[in-house]
């Protein structure tokens, strides 16, 4: 199974500077280098957040998880956040087993992600 990667800015999400990465197919030992290359280009730009949309992702292995972990760390260094939405149940189970991605926000869908960001921004405005 191949991996299809679609990278779009602000698609779905209302948040500016947020890049949505739609994955379809299989993120495994053979395809993860391709995702890493694609995301290196994305991270070189002014990205504030990454949302991995996994609605069409059928398979993920530790090789794929490592790429996501690496991306999350790089984004943290830039003050950004990484989120995952629309995970299929089996993919979610893999994330749950690993329990090794603290700081990765998991949302049911993009609406839930947007609500979270909006609430967080409101909270920061109220404090400051």
């Amino acid at each position, binding site marked *: 199974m191949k991996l299809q990667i679609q990278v779009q800015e602000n698609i779905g999400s209302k948040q500016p500077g947020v890049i949505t990465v739609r994955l379809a197919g299989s993120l495994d030992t053979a395809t993860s280098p391709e995702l890493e290359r694609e995301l290196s280009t994305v991270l070189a730009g002014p990205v504030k957040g990454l949302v991995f949309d996994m609605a069409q992702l059928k398979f993920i292995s*530790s090789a794929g998880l490592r790429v996501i972990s690496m991306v999350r760390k790089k984004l*943290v260094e830039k003050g950004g956040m990484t989120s995952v939405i629309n995970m299929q149940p089996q993919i979610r189970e893999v994330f749950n087993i690993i329990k*090794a991605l603290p700081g990765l926000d998991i949302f049911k869908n993009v609406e839930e992600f947007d609500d979270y960001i909006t609430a967080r921004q409101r909270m920061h405005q109220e404090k400051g």
Partner: protein
Amino acid sequence: MKLELYATPGEVMRAVKALQQLGQDNQVPEGPLFGLALALEECASNIVNYALQRDVRRTFFVTLKHSESSIVIELRDNGPEFDPTQAPLNEKEESDDRPPGGWGIKLVRRFTDEIRYTRQGNENVLCLIKRLAA
């Protein structure tokens, strides 16, 4: 079914695809098949990356056996002696200053019912067993 595979990630996925096809042909439920495919990917990737150092000239073997009661996967390589069943589990969560490790074996343990390792001559022989519901 016995496959001889070169030490490349693409060949790992060829084995995974063969397992998925075997499972579909025998109406193995999607859940167990997904987990077993993942376990095979993890173990075969370790062989490619560590045992055979991604030397594309070297090969390893994967044998797939299906019965009504189980699916058995045997992986056989002639790399340095290594027993993955003795690999320590990294139970603590990853922290930002520690690279991820041990995820593969954690997934293999979760998605298989039994893992057996033996060293036979100069070969590592790893068996992954998944019992199927009666």
